[in-house]
């Protein structure tokens, strides 16, 4: 509250008095902080983090942040309430898995990219009703996506490659300190 009561520095007239015109800064992005964090995460973390920190905290943290980014696009920017975004996460994971298993010639990054595109296409399909409605009513679309996709991925064995457990997992890529797991559930 005290911050609100104190006038901002620009309005005190102090800078004008000292004949220093206040620099006009229009939403200058500060990249230093994120850049340092990124370098630390990419270089420092793998050398100090142990298995527990990676698999229990850091990687889930990244996964949840990514899904949070997707949700922020949907709810934050366009105000469309979604409670079924995990369904689209599943599409991406299952699509990448299907590509890895059935089109082994593709390198992993390409499979991941294509998996993302497939998830986007499915999202587009379920986004069609958003052309007519918005807000809470759209929650039903996201739930339709969630439950329908869950049903598809558990009902048709093609998606989990006829495995007995009904879940999918890929071998960990070698020579990467970061854990990559497509394990669902």
């Amino acid at each position, binding site marked *: 509250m005290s911050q609100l009561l104190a006038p901002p520095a620009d309005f005190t007239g102090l800078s004008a008095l000292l004949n220093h015109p206040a620099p006009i800064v229009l939403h200058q992005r500060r990249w230093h902080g994120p850049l340092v964090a990124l370098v630390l995460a990419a270089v420092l973390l793998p050398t100090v983090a142990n298995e527990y920190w990676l698999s229990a905290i850091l990687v889930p943290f990244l996964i949840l942040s990514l899904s949070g980014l997707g949700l922020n696009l949907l709810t934050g920017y366009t105000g469309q309430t979604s409670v079924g975004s995990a369904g689209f996460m599943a599409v991406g994971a299952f699509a990448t898995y299907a590509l890895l298993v059935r089109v082994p010639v593709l390198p992993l990054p390409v499979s991941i990219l294509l998996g993302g595109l497939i998830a986007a296409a499915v999202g587009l399909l379920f986004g069609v009703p958003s052309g007519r*409605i*918005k*807000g*809470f009513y759209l929650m039903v679309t996201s*739930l*339709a996506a969630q*439950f*329908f996709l869950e*049903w598809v991925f558990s*009902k048709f064995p093609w998606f989990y490659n006829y495995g007995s457990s009904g879940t999918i997992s890929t071998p960990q890529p070698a020579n990467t300190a970061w854990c990559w797991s497509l394990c669902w559930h």
Partner: protein
Amino acid sequence: MGLFLETLIGGLLAGTMYSLVAIGFVLIYKASGVFNYAQGSLLLFAALTFVTLHEKGLSFPAALAATVVVLIAAALLIERWVLRPLANRTQITLFMATLGLSFVVEGISQGLMGAEVHSLDLGIDDVPVFIGGLMFSQFDAVAAATAAVLVTVLALLFNKTRIGVSLRAVADDTRAALSLGINLNRIWQIVWAVAGVVGLVAGMLWGARQGVQFSLSFVVLKALPVLIIGGFTSIGGAIAGGLIVGASETLAEAYLGPYIGGGITPWFAYFLAIAFLYVRPAGLFGERTIDRV
């Protein structure tokens, strides 16, 4: 034809269970414009409190009364700590607050009363009954009768009591109601308490059917298509929506399911609701206030 009628009646009766959950939503949405995501958690909390008290040795009526008292206390706390600080915020803010509230309520219920599955015996056997050569479940019939009684009581409450009239005034025009001296906070307290009691009834019926357990809080998700179809602001709509969802998903499972692999009840209702959105965006009985893009 006999099979069709039996499926239809079974679906309609099961649909009243959805209606019961949806009514709790409608009450709060009408009075405060809040889409209460925590209704499912409240339902779980109510049913869990009742079962725990009953297992601790309280008689059926005593446990019921004690649970109602707990629910009223919960409504007072929620109004004071969640709704009042967020008054006049946007709908999405309040929705997010109830989303958070649902986690708090679930955490408290499981922390205090444990996560194990409790069985709840209401003394109604789930046995088939034959009437006119048609078979249906006795339990579903009792659930439907309960829903009918509850709706009658709510209708009386809204139309014949002073509280009910002020509640309708708030729902109709909040500013006008405020200027007439209606205490909005009191109305919110009452409506959350009533929604809690409706949740208790719904939770007891669902709990008797599938056990009082964590997954009870997910019935809230099935109430959403009911609300879309019936409209967010109409109790009659919640009933009609529940019946439509119950009947159509049972029929779809029986007649459409075998062609596409079965087990389609988890998602069928949502697609039905989307179809309804295209035809009647405000639901069957809702007010036409939907925002268009």
